[in-house]
């Protein structure tokens, strides 16, 4: 057996890091569209009209039970055919990141809607009533009173959701997207399958540092936001 070569890890990390922007772009895109979807779903659940609520419930329950990789492949194989047969658009040649974005938007939307809903419901109803009673419109009451407080509550869960999204996003290489994982598998095949362990460890180190980075920055952000909260309460 070939001896383990720790120096190769450092070499590979410098080969992998140029692909970090692809991963980050994928995460940011999914967070943006996923949050929009999550907002719509959370609104449907909070408003409590029967049919939208039922639809949102079904959607969230379904997506909660779907492994990311299965959804990724359903989108990857299904979306081109669906678009082809319904509106006649051929998307077989578009960049693979589109499929990855669609998949993780669908997944992140479901998670995000629960994060938003629980945060919104954790705020005392009296806050909204008080805002309305001093003459704010329902729209103002939401944006000026409810939303800032909900954001502070939602932050830790949002951080967790973000980390999970990043970890699930590593599956994008299975449909051929060249992000960090994709580049890692390319490096391994370029070395004819040797140095696989070193490459995987290098990837693990990168992902681990990213997780710690996200955790720490959310910790700082949370401390900052909850500081304001305390001073209000006092």
């Amino acid at each position, binding site marked *: 057996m070939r001896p383990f070569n720790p120096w190769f890890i450092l070499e590979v990390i410098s080969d992998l890091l140029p692909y970090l922007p692809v991963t980050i772009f994928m995460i940011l895109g999914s967070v943006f569209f996923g949050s929009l979807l999550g907002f719509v779903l959370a609104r449907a659940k909070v408003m409590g009209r029967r049919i939208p609520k039922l639809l949102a419930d079904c959607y969230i329950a379904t997506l909660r039970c779907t492994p990311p990789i*299965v959804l990724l492949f*359903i989108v990857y*194989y*299904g979306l081109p*055919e669906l678009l082809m047969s319904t509106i006649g658009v051929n998307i077989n040649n578009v960049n693979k990141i589109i499929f990855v974005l669609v998949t993780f938007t669908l997944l992140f939307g479901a998670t995000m809607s629960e994060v938003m809903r629980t945060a919104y419901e954790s705020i005392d109803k009296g806050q909204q009533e008080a805002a309305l009673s001093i003459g704010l419109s329902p729209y103002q009451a939401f944006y000026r009173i409810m939303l800032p407080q909900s954001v502070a509550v939602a932050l830790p869960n949002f951080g967790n959701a973000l980390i999970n999204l990043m970890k699930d996003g590593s599956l994008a290489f299975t449909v051929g997207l060249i992000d960090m994982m994709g580049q890692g598998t390319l490096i391994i095949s370029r070395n004819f399958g040797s140095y*696989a*362990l070193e490459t995987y460890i290098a990837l*693990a180190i990168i*992902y681990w540092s990213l*997780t710690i980075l996200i955790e720490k920055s959310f910790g700082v952000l949370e401390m900052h936001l909850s500081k304001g909260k305390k001073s209000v309460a006092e």
Partner: protein
Amino acid sequence: MELNLDYLIKTFFLAITGIPTTLEITIVALLVATPISFFMAIYKIYNVKIIKQIITAYVSVIRGTPIVLQILIVYSLLPSLFNMAVKSMGWNWDVFSMNPIIYAYIVFSLNTIAGLSEVFRSALLTVNTGQLEAAHAIGMTTVQAYTRIVIPQALVVAMPNICNLTVNLIKGTSLAFMMTVKEITSIAKIEASFGYNYIESYIDIFLIYIIVCSITQLLFSLVEKHFRSYKSITKAS
């Protein structure tokens, strides 16, 4: 879009035969992880110095890396390690003919230990220390106090999190196909590669996971209700 319905139905029933393997991995991982992660949680709560740091680092690494990487690392490291160990012991036994499900057990146990230890820790912390002190005061040993007083209360709190963890674990086992384990995903994928019926196969996998996870959630909610009923009785009396 044309779906091959015959194939869809045929593969559905074929892929269902992978459910036992999926559940086997899940249950083995949970069984292995439960005692270990319980003691990890206890060590962390009692602030045992060096051990606590080791556990924290372990949990951080496992939770900070994608499970697909953990699978790839274990699957590229362990077989050759085992082989070396076997060779050095002088046994005549072919490691590479071993059922790859062993590696699946190892990866998912390692993963579950990290998740479960955090679940247990947060659940144990919700139980008031007064409970433990009261149990000591009436003459129970620490072990008795834990098994009879603290753990039953902590379990009620931990149930929703354990449910989440189990569902995520079941979803995670869909990646075991990377270790050539024959579970739901790999059976349907292999079937699809004969005639390029990938959409149908993935729809089958999708449906099966929804069914399996929904049943799991239902079972957990029943167990939870059962535990809660004890709680309301003690409250009423």
